[in-house]
């Protein structure tokens, strides 16, 4: 489509605005034209990489995760680092679009669509990387059908899906005016399928003031929501690590550090995506070097913050030198991972900061180099965070190792290639630039430049829609899952002492020594008042009582199989009457008490000589039995956990309802005939 055709459609407004407006519209349509050879080349290379990754994943599915380099000492590694990295970079979209929208930074206009698109694509790729990470992906639906509400990984799933939905809404709502204006202006030139899609999305949009007001309001609400939602996603990802008692992972700073890491790498990726599309579709007149420098300043802010947080993360553990944490930090800072850590510190922390700080590198190439460094080094940092602590054997203090294999590298590269590929395909369908936003801001700037009264109607559109108050609880922060659950069902004591046991239990006695000519022993057992007393009477060869002899009492149990095991209950010396008495549980040396009801067999033995053992047994019907087991005290914080989970569900529900309400109100205002 030629420039002449485009210009002829332009109607009122003054000539300067007219030219740039047309330019923005025309530029937004550039990806819709016949793709260049470069486009085809890029798409085919990226597709090949993605296909290779899918093949690698199928191999892993068939042969097990060992082919991806995993072992029991490296149970979490590259894939979870990839998940954190990709979901992390999606925060860039929220920053550039939402934060800049809320702060009224008008220069954002040509970047928002690209930034939001990047957010959607990266969060989808990041979520998909969970599939190679887990052992049996075909059972993932269990997260919905039988979730464990106390598990951080379950809340990861909730947070990521909520954030994905919000990103999609945030991406889709501004498309309505753009698609309406493009369809009106270009019609069938867009292509049949695109025209149909644009008509469907923008149905009913005429750009009436009321429609504009509602859309701006809805976007304001979603902008506010998406910031805490992104915070929640990166926090819960961090808590999947921090809620274990593993050294270094178990740090309170991890959640904020993950959030800043996401902001940092996200801004860097937005710089790269914007630079790529600017070059590919010649958007130099709309996106200037000034844009990159401004994004570079944001990058530098997060760079400095991240360096600070990394230092704050490492200092206390290294200073105290606790076993475990100190071992992990030694490996990281001076051990076999030190090269990588200091590479990150220099190339991922200081260099980007310098590239922004120094005037002669504060330009487009400088910002692109800084961004490449940040994106790659932040992946490296995540690898270090996962592996340095994950490989630590908490029994031996030794470290395991993760080994890169072609499978895991291919899957990671495929995910990396999928981001530009999906973006290139996405912008074949939706407009590359946020035309409405650009035009709006141009109009306002033009109106500000001259003392016009007509612009007053539009000024309310910029900045946050303060009139739309956020519903209470919609800012979904903090899915913290503290120590809950895991608490045993409390054990009720079987019986209380003495209750209903006043009458002595029946006892039958069998005599061990039959012949009166030899040493004989008899045992009787009486249960009284909840206590079991065993009495053994020992008679000598002549029938006289045997004094000062040691009688051993035993309890016969078949709990651990037959023949019955004999549990030694203690030994008692006979008195002058040849009687030995043992009260079970009566003193500290004889702790055993009957633990099960019913007939129980007790035995008394006396070693008349080394070869001659006399025994006698009796069966007592135990009526008062007491479990020896005392459960540990319940966790006092368990109730807090339950309350937290309930609160989180309310918040998540509110977020989803609020999101749906924004879509609904925009749809509704488009239905009304104005």
């Amino acid at each position: 489509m030629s420039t002449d055709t485009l210009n002829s459609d332009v109607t009122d407004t003054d000539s300067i605005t007219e030219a740039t407006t047309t330019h923005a519209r025309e530029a937004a349509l550039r990806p819709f034209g016949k793709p260049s050879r470069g486009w085809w080349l890029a798409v085919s290379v990226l597709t090949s990489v993605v296909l290779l990754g899918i093949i690698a994943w199928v191999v892993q599915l068939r042969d097990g995760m060992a082919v991806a380099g995993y072992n029991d000492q490296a149970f979490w590694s590259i894939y979870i680092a990839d998940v954190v990295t990709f979901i992390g970079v999606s925060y860039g979209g929220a920053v550039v679009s939402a934060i800049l929208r809320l702060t009224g930074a008008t220069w954002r206009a040509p970047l928002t669509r690209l930034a939001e698109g990047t957010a959607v694509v990266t969060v989808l790729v990041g979520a998909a990387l969970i599939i190679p990470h887990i052992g049996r992906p075909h059972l993932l639906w269990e997260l919905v059908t039988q979730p464990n509400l106390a598990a951080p990984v379950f809340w990861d799933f909730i947070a990521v899906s909520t954030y994905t939905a919000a990103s999609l809404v945030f991406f889709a709502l501004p498309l309505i005016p753009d698609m309406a204006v493009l369809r009106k202006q270009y019609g069938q030139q867009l292509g049949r399928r695109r025209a149909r899609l644009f008509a469907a999305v923008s149905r009913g949009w005429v750009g009436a003031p009321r429609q504009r007001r509602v859309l701006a309001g809805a976007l304001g609400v979603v902008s506010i929501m998406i910031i805490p939602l992104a915070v929640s996603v990166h926090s819960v990802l961090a808590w999947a690590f921090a809620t274990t008692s593993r050294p270094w992972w178990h740090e309170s700073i991890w959640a904020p550090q993950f959030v800043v890491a996401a902001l940092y790498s996200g801004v860097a990726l937005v710089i790269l995506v914007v630079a790529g599309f600017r070059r590919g579709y010649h958007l130099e007149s709309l996106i200037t070097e000034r844009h990159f420098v401004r994004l570079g300043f944001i990058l530098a802010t997060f760079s400095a913050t991240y360096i600070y947080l990394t230092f704050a993360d490492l200092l206390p553990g290294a200073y105290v030198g606790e076993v475990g944490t100190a071992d992990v930090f030694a490996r990281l800072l001076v051990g076999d991972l030190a090269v990588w850590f200091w590479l990150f510190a220099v190339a991922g922390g200081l260099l980007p900061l310098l590239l922004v700080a120094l005037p002669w590198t504060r330009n487009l190439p400088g910002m692109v180099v800084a961004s490449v460094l940040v994106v790659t080094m932040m992946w490296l940092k995540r690898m270090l965070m996962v592996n340095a602590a994950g490989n630590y054997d908490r029994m031996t203090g030794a470290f395991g190792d993760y080994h890169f294999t072609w499978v895991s590298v291919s899957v990671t590269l495929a995910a990396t290639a999928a981001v530009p590929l999906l973006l290139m395909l996405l912008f074949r369908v939706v407009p590359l630039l946020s035309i409405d936003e650009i035009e709006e801001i141009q109009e306002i700037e033009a109106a500000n430049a001259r003392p016009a009264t007509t612009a007053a109607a539009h000024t309310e559109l910029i900045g946050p829609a303060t009139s739309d108050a956020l519903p209470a609880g919609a800012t979904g922060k903090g899915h913290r899952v503290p120590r809950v659950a895991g608490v045993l069902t409390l054990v009720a004591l079987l019986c209380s002492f003495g209750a209903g046991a006043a009458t002595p239990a029946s006892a039958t006695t069998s005599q061990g020594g039959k012949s009166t000519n030899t040493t004989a022993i008899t045992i009787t057992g009486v249960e009284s008042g909840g206590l079991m007393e065993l009495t053994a009477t020992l008679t000598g060869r002549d029938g006289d009582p045997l004094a000062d002899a040691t009688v051993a009492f035993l309890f016969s149990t078949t709990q651990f199989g037959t023949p019955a095991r004999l549990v030694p209950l203690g030994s008692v010396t006979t008195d002058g009457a040849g009687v030995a008495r043992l009260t079970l549980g009566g003193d500290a040396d004889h702790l055993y008490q009957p633990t099960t009801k019913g007939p129980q067999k007790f035995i008394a033995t006396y070693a008349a000589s080394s070869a001659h053992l006399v025994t006698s047994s009796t069966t007592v019907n135990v009526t008062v039995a007491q479990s020896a087991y005392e459960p540990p005290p319940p966790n006092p914080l368990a109730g807090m956990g339950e309350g937290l989970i309930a609160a989180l569900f309310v918040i998540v529900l509110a977020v989803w309802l609020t999101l749906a309400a924004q879509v609904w109100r925009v749809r509704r205002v488009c239905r009304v005939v104005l």
Partner: protein
Amino acid sequence: MFAKENDMQPPTTHPDVPAGLAPELAQEVSTVLSRRSLLATVGLAAAGGALATVFFKDEVHAATVAKGATAPEHAWCMVIDLRTCDGCEMCTRSCQQRHGLREEQTWIKVYSMEDSSGGTFAMPRPCMMCEDPPCLKVCPVGATLHTDEGLVLVDQDTCIGSRACMAACPYEARYFNWSEPLPPKGIPMPSTPEMPKQAQGTVGKCVLCADRLPYGELPACVAGCPMGVLYIGDLVTDIAVNGPGKTVVLSEFLRDNDAVRYKEELGTNPRVWYILGHGQTLGQQV
């Protein structure tokens, strides 16, 4: 969930035991407390949410089952007498043979630990069967179970292989099936959490031979230990026995020998006690 509970029922007959000896063990899954009592609150909060009703239908059922449960008849535990352990690893091998494990899958692993005088001693480490198991909380799909009798088991049919439990376990007692498990031999079908058949992509761990305990049989490691180091015990009946036949009153045995639990400070309430020897220490490694 219903299907899972059915799986948890003990087998009505055991290959080695006459049918008349029915096990007393009632293996009711004790669901995670938070999940259970959450219902009341969430039921209120999300009364309107159809989503929530789908989520909690099973939990409502589990909650009613658990409430009626009485005190457990057994509370299984283990005592490990380090004084007599010579590190022969017969326990490990007996276990691997019984459960069809690979060499690196050491559900009971014998560590060589350093004592305070620079010497070494052997320390077998089974699953600690914690009363507050960190692995239980973090499982996203509730594949780790805690029975009324205190056994921490893995439902192989539910496990999605997220390995969150491996990250959480302070004793490194969990092992992933990184590749196709060895072909099962002598394992009764179907697989139960008490006698799990390993599957690629799932986590396995020591089950204390939960399928044997109701029949009065000893776990493979206890039976296989020639030194009598390992004792299987029951905190309810207060009895512990080892392989060679020594039988003790559990509470007295623990007290008289100054038994300790490993990494007590983590608050997991492990159900494995160690009896230390002369000059032997158990480090406070975290």
